[in-house]
């Protein structure tokens, strides 16, 4: 983040009364249409979806409302249609494969992958917890849970874990998508509210984005965690529902009784669904960055591996990584993040601005290109020396390696010297490879070089199969186990804040 750029954005938005684009390209794949999911939990109940809406985002949503989500039978009965639909969509999408050649090996990966979009990052975490709960369900009274619930749990867990991969497009949190593509007056903390973000971008006629987002923040309800007012209404409706049903969990009995709760959550979900649709519709027309298709191919590959493991082989995932697995995952995530940042900056000039301001990149006019010979080890080899005139002062050490954005996956240029040149600088660089036409700009070109490289810099070895004793845990990671033992407990009665001695204790 460049603070100068952030300050400039804030000032312009304040003065002009409109949000500004951070990018000229879209850096995330958006399906047409993706499968939207919105969710409302019961306050404090991390595993209980009081309502779950889903469906293609260009159409109406289906809504699962269990009535009393802390009752296992009612909860599973309500979630079953969602689970069955999700599993069917994933299986259908993964069924069509395409051959891919890589390193002389032919692989088959899905042609497409089911994309989920959710309103915010909090929903990603909520789906991950719901997935953890459903994926390892235990039997009750000798009755096994519906297999679709277990399979859907595994899918949700996979999606939530995959959402950590920088630049992935399988599970898109719309607040992050918008915050990544738009500059607003909202701080990173406030950007977690999708309605506030949307209000900054489309504040409505005659309204300043600040006023529009403040109003949205106060009134819009996005989920998954309910506000006090939502759960006050839910509490009253739920009390009526439980009183009317007694101990019944028969769908024919409880279905009609859940009507008021269904209506309550339907009314809450409609604006969220419209908001999600509006956001996706606004972002989709922006041209996709060239690297989006490559990243989505990686997503499809991961999606295919997952479906093969879970659906074809009936496999489960670990719930706690081994130290070796954690090290590999961390390394992969870090590499992917570096590559994603490099891709964005190299492909999108708007993304490069922050790097130019932070001194990680230089832009200038090619003043001259001179071929020379240098001795590398014992041989004299051809090298190209370029003089670049930057209109801005440059501070870079000798030997610093920079990649020309046109060949960011190739060989770097090495800084030979930096001299003042009028108000700017003249930077002399030498290509660290044999000069070929595709590796060279032409004198007079305005080019950008940066520390960002989109190519593979080094091959890294996998950690040993048997880690040394220094990296072995005292106790082995826990075997995945069901976490649903508490389903049999009596639900806690709601307590109004006015009746609690000190409600802040339970924040």
């Amino acid at each position: 983040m460049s603070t100068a750029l952030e300050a400039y954005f804030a000032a312009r938005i304040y003065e002009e009364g409109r949000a500004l684009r951070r990018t000229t390209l879209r850096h995330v794949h958006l399906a047409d249409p993706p499968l939207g999911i919105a969710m409302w939990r019961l306050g404090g109940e991390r595993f209980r979806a009081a309502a779950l809406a889903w469906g293609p985002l260009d159409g109406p949503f289906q809504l699962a409302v269990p009535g009393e989500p802390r009752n296992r039978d009612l909860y599973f009965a309500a979630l079953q249609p969602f689970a069955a639909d999700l599993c069917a969509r994933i299986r259908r999408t993964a069924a069509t494969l395409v051959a891919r050649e890589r390193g002389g090996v032919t692989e088959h990966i899905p042609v497409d992958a089911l994309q989920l979009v959710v309103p915010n990052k909090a929903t990603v975490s909520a789906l991950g917890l719901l997935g953890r709960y459903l994926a390892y369900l235990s039997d009750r009274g000798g009755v096994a849970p519906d297999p679709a619930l277990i399979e859907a749990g595994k899918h949700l867990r996979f999606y939530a874990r995959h959402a950590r991969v920088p630049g992935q497009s399988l599970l898109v949190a719309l607040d992050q998508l918008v915050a990544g593509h738009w500059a607003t007056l909202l701080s990173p903390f406030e950007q977690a509210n999708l309605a506030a973000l949307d209000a900054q971008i489309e504040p409505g006629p005659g309204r300043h984005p600040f006023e529009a987002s403040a109003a949205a923040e106060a009134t819009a309800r996005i989920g998954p965690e309910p506000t006090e007012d939502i759960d006050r209404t839910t509490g009253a409706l739920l009390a009526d529902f439980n009183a009317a049903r007694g101990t019944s969990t028969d769908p024919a009995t409880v279905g009609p009784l859940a009507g008021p709760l269904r209506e309550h959550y339907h009314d809450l979900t409609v604006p969220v669904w419209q908001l999600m649709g509006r956001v996706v519709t606004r972002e989709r027309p922006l041209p996709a960055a060239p690297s989006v298709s490559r990243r989505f191919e990686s997503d499809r590959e991961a999606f295919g591996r997952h479906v093969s493991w879970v659906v074809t082989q009936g496999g489960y995932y670990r719930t706690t990584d081994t130290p070796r697995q954690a090290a590999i995952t961390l390394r992969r995530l870090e590499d992917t993040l570096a590559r994603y940042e490099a891709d964005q900056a190299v492909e999108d000039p708007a993304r490069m601005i922050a790097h130019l301001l932070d001194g990680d990149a230089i832009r200038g006019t090619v003043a001259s290109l001179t071929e020379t010979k240098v001795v590398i080890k014992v041989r004299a080899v051809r090298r190209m020396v370029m003089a670049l005139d930057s209109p801005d002062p440059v501070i870079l050490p000798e030997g610093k390696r920079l990649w020309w954005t046109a060949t960011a996956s190739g060989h770097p240029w090495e800084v030979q010297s930096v001299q003042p040149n009028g108000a700017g600088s003249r930077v002399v660089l030498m290509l660290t490879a044999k000069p070929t036409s595709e590796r060279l700009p032409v004198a007079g070109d305005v080019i950008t070089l940066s520390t960002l490289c989109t190519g593979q810099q080094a091959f890294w070895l996998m950690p040993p199969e048997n880690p040394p004793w220094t990296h072995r845990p005292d106790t082995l990671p826990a075997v995945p186990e069901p976490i649903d033992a508490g389903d049999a407990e009596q639900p806690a009665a709601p307590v109004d804040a006015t009746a609690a001695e000190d409600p802040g204790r339970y924040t």
Partner: protein
Amino acid sequence: MPRHQPDPAAATALARVRGQAPEIRANVRRLAAFASVHACPTAAVAFAARIDTNRVLAGTSMEMPFGQSPFAIGRGVAFEALLRRHGHAELRRVLTAGLDTDFTFAAIENLREGYQPNRTGLRLRANVTQTRMAEIAGGPPEPVILDGAVLHADIGGLPAFFEADEMAIGVGGQIIVGENKSWPVVDGKPADEDALGAALDQAATYVLLGRQTLEQAGVDPACMSDSVVLVTPRNTGLAPSLHRQDVASRIRRIERLLSAVPDVQETAAATPQSVTFDAVADKTLPETARVEAFGQVTDVLGRVYEPASCLTSCGFAWACRACLFADADPGLVGGQVARALPGIASLSRVAELGQGAPASPAEEPAAVPLARAGRLYDEVIPAPGQPERRTA
């Protein structure tokens, strides 16, 4: 943090500042929250005057939604009740399993019961807390659990009693802070990592105040352990589990933050007679008058707005943000941006400098990168009406 005697003049000044604003008793949780906004003079005065910042602006559009879901409160109440049921059987079981010490016959003293809910009651509870903590340090034969402790401490020169939600667990001459939270832990990880951080901050504040209490009693404060225990439900139900965590670095951080709190008595004495939250909290006044009164108070006292900490800890955050917007203050988008703009007072001026307007000598350091940012952005995405100047 030296101990001071209460200054009646300062107390009167603080009461005047409070006016009809709702008052709130100090507790460790609020102190931990205050630590995150301690740099703000308005927050410091409100803290000193015991103003409930969450309720001062009640009834206006600036009132922040800090309300809790009844189900979330109910879950917390049910979890605490579970731990206390049948002579604290569940609490004894989980502590025995987690601390490798038999708590079957541990003495459990609940200081929330049997004392008046007023300052006299707090003073008595603070005395008992200090005595019991000194006894624990002496190493009683059986473990001791102290529930609802009250700690006496000076923060910014203000002596106050702080109620603790947590427990003091005495084992073998060592005091371990224990805290109950109703969010679940799954696969050894908290379901809500932000909540974990807040809980550990509260526990670290408790350790810090506990050490002060021990010092006042002439007992070695080192017997207050650096590690704390969290008792939380495991998985989907309420079955409790225990986790022990070292919070030494958090203790140091909070100590540093609280030692930097300005002397509130001096602040109160220096506050002009006209400054009071009386009109801000007056529900008979129209909203505009109340918000305007708030702006006047904070203009005099000063405000430091950091979105992430203020919006989670202070009930004045929305009102402060609105004041910043009205003033075109660069702090609106956070302190990091504001600190990068030395010598520039308003966003309007930042916009001018971004368009290449000549800078004064004071503005020069920030003006150069701003002008460059404006030029680079305009090259890529021209402002409406500007010709495109896109580079290769």
